């Protein structure tokens, strides 16, 4: 069960980036202002859906300090859209706007004050169109259609399964266009027959709220053109993906687009893929000077949010509570542009039914365009939405059958290695054992008093981590090592983990290892930083790069020592000759090159083969329990106990794992209890951090237990696998289950605000219930 403790890997080493961060020295994109930098401000749509009749820029250009006003008409020579799955997203609105807050023009000025004044002075004339403000309205037979064009989807293998174009199936000449951006269906067995024979059939419908990740550093980017090369510094999680979009926009070779990412002030998936980089870049392209664009929080909320969801679930059980069949209907409100929602939908479909033995399954998923802020990735990626439906459904069944909620899960969880998705990798975790850890901890401190309730929930996410990674290690003449990786440090601690791994593999002190990340011109290629992939997938590439460096050093040592390579033994930072001499890596390099100079470069690559052939590369476990206390007078929910399992295979840095785990759990509690973006008419009523409330320090649970589980069952180095979003995924469902136990009523929507809970307690209809 337990894993081997190692010299550096597995130790709670202090993260070096933290020293820079506590002194204020750490550089974030927002701190980068090159000489001669101009500043930009975005003019945004004041309509939800409207035709653009004209854009009057002369008043803006008359503002002192304003250099240029860029509109879609300036982009005729460019490919004016982006989007890695469906390139539907206009850099600047063309012909029409599809949501309130959509960029319509970009004002570039000598300073931000002039840019802001200039943006105020741009006048846009609109002709209003009927708007579809939610998924239900967008699916209505007479709904206004957001997208009239086919955009053609990405041919990328990992996205090709997402490739349906808007509203159009693969067949037929011209079926009527709809607002369905994407559909995903999944089924096996005979659901109807199984439901007909079930002892009980339990059906319920849930609503998962529209969320904002609130990475505290808002989206920002600095772009400049020199000759025919584009250089962008950006708050992007995936610089290489952004590079691809930018190269297409400007018809540039990938090698002439450099995207550089310093420290990120939080990401949580919300900084995945391309955001505002094209805006900054077209500004710089027009004025031929560096342009900096920094969004405020309201603009950031209108840039990306998470998909809200309405989900109906119907499950059949036998008398012992075993699942016979499950059917789900998932509708995501994906906003005005597809962005990453097709993938979010695919994952919601794969994850909604839970890590259980489900002999018969039918899931229908639709991602729907609406005239709202575009939705995309957010930590958890469809899993929290699906889990709210599936896991509350399971508790309802347990209640009907008189079975304990933990017991019904015991009876249905897949065993270690068991199959969740046919043909995919079996579960690389012991979920039943994880469940017992949560149940024991909760029971130990449970208070069985009125107004209290316990809730548990389980998820397993097929990690959307496509195995394409590269890494380079450069061994220096003094034996120190520079590591190059395209994985972004956004707070999760990858810089430290990769250093630990190299120190372990090469046997050098961790202080001698430096990690350089996320610069498409200088670091190695990395597909993305998301889906908890770095330790596992980048880790494998780094491990291979270290092996490559050792192999090269061995060849070189054999040459200079005139001995067979096999006679050299591998040691910590050294090779040992047959006669017992230790040849330090640095000395080997110096002697081979002939002078105190040179270096050895080890290269490691990872693709879909061997141990990473089978998808997903790993499953991310979410296993949580909460105990809540409810104030019947006010409806306020107080979290007494928060118990999470971080089933990570091997914890490279246990303190960092606990930190990620509690962070994910806390964001999950935010969506469960506080957070929701609310549209009223064309615009949000709460696009700010006063009215969009996130968890605060006094919301801390009285008891927090993060149980780090290491069974070495992951595909990554030393048995590691992904962590850091697991605890978020089932949290909303667990809180809903706990509130149900405490109130005796079944909530159907999150967040469980005091008013909603008070209404439950008092047997009143839910707020804004259908």
């Amino acid at each position, binding site marked *: 069960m337990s894993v081997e403790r190692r010299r550096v890997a597995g130790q709670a080493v202090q993260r070096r980036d933290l*020293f820079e961060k506590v002194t204020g020295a750490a550089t974030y994109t927002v701190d980068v202002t090159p000489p001669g930098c101009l500043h930009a401000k975005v003019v945004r749509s004041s309509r939800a859906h409207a035709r653009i009749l004209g854009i009057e820029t002369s008043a803006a250009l008359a503002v002192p300090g304003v250099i240029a006003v860029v509109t879609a008409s300036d982009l005729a020579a460019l490919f004016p859209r982006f989007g890695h799955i469906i390139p539907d997203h206009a850099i600047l609105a063309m012909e029409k706007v599809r949501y309130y807050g959509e960029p319509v023009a970009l004002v570039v000025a000598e300073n931000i004050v002039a840019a802001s004044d200039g943006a105020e002075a741009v006048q846009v004339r609109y002709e209003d169109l009927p708007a579809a403000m939610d998924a239900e309205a967008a699916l209505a037979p007479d709904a206004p259609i957001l997208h009239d064009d086919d955009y053609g989807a990405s041919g990328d293998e990992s996205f090709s399964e997402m490739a349906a174009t808007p509203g159009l199936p693969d067949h037929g000449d011209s079926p009527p266009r709809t607002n369905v951006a994407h559909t995903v269906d999944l089924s096996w067995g005979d659901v109807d027959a199984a439901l007909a024979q079930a002892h009980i059939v339990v059906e319920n419908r849930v609503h998962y709220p529209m969320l904002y990740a609130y990475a505290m550093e*808002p989206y920002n980017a600095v772009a400049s053109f020199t000759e025919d090369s584009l250089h962008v510094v950006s708050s992007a999680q995936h610089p290489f993906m952004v590079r691809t979009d930018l190269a297409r926009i400007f018809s540039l070779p990938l090698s002439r687009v450099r995207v550089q990412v310093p420290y990120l002030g939080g990401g949580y998936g919300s900084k995945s893929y391309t955001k505002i980089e094209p805006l900054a870049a077209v500004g710089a392209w027009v004025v031929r000077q560096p342009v900096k664009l920094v969004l405020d929080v309201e603009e950031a909320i209108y840039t990306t949010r998470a998909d809200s969801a309405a989900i109906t679930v119907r499950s059949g059980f036998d008398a012992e509570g075993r699942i016979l069949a499950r059917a789900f209907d998932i509708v995501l409100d994906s906003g005005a542009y597809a962005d990453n929602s097709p993938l979010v939908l695919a994952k919601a479909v794969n994850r909604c039914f839970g890590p259980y033995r489900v002999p018969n399954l039918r899931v229908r998923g639709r991602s729907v365009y609406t005239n709202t802020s575009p939705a995309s990735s957010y930590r958890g990626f469809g899993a929290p939405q699906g889990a709210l439906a599936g896991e509350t459904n399971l508790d309802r069944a347990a209640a009907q059958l008189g079975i304990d909620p933990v017991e019904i899960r015991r009876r249905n969880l897949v065993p270690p290695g068991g199959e969740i998705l046919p043909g995919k990798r079996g579960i690389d975790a012991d979920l039943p054992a994880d469940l017992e850890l949560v149940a024991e901890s909760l029971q130990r401190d449970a208070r069985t008093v009125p107004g209290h309730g316990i809730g548990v929930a389980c998820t397993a996410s097929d990690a959307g981590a496509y195995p394409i990674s590269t890494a380079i290690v450069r061994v220096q003449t003094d034996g120190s090592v520079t590591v190059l990786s395209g994985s972004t440090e956004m*707070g999760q601690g990858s810089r430290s983990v990769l250093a630990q791994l190299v120190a372990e593999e090469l046997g050098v002190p961790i202080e001698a290892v430096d990690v350089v990340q996320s610069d498409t011109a200088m670091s190695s290629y990395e597909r993305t930083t998301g889906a908890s992939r770095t330790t596992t997938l980048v880790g494998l590439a780094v491990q291979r790069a270290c092996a490559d460096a050792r192999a090269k050093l061995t060849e070189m040592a054999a040459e200079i020592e005139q001995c067979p390579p096999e006679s050299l033994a591998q040691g910590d930072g050294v090779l040992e000759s047959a006669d017992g001499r230790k040849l330090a890596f640095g000395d080997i390099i110096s002697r081979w090159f002939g002078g105190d100079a040179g270096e050895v470069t080890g290269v490691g690559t990872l693709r879909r083969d061997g141990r990473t052939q089978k998808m997903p590369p790993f499953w991310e476990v979410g296993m949580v329990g909460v105990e809540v206390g409810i104030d019947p007078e006010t409806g306020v929910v107080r979290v007494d106990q928060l118990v999470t399992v971080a089933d990570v295979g091997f914890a490279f840095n246990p303190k960092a794992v606990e930190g990620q785990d509690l*962070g994910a759990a806390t964001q999950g509690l935010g969506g469960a209890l506080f957070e929701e973006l609310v549209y009223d008419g064309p615009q949000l009523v709460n696009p700010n951090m006063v009215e969009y409330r996130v968890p605060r320090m*006094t919301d801390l649970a009285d008891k927090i237990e993060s149980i780090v589980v290491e069974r070495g069952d992951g595909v990554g180095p030393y048995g590691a696998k992904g962590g850091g979003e697991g605890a978020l995924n089932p949290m909303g469902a667990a809180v809903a289950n706990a509130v149900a136990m405490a109130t005796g009523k079944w909530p159907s929507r999150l967040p469980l605000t005091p008013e909603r809970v008070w209404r439950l307690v008092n047997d009143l209809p839910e707020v804004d219930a259908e």
Partner: protein
Amino acid sequence: MTAAQPATGHDHVVVAADVNGVSVTEPVPTRWTLAQFLRDRLGLTGTKVSCELQVCGACSVLVDGAPVSACTYLAADIDGRRVQTVEGLAARDQLHPLQRSFVEHFALQCGFCTPGFLMMAKALLDRNPDPTEDEVKEYLDGNICRCTGYEPIVAAVLDAAKRMRGQA
């Protein structure tokens, strides 16, 4: 703001202040915030701006020892006052006990909120060297962190307080 009468920052006022122990005399646009002045004029980019509405605490700095939100505090108002930012927390080569404690307790991940937390925690410990856990939570409730889940921050502040009392 109309286009006819743009306020592009031409109205200036001269401020003389002590910033992290350094005397500063600078003309600043009247509409500049303290955060703009610190970051864009003095290059003290450790102070971060996030919500711009005084609810996240990321931009917290001390003015005459009291915490203020630099995102909404006007630069003109520091005239004659003493400003302390995260850059002034460490003494030459020695991290402040709060800084050391934050690193040791993993009380930060992305670090964007950290300068604000450190300055707010300093304000607390300057007034109350021996706070209870509840007092720490109450005092820092106006600072948002999206990464850590807060527990390690509470632990770090309590530990730093203990160390500082030991030093005194």
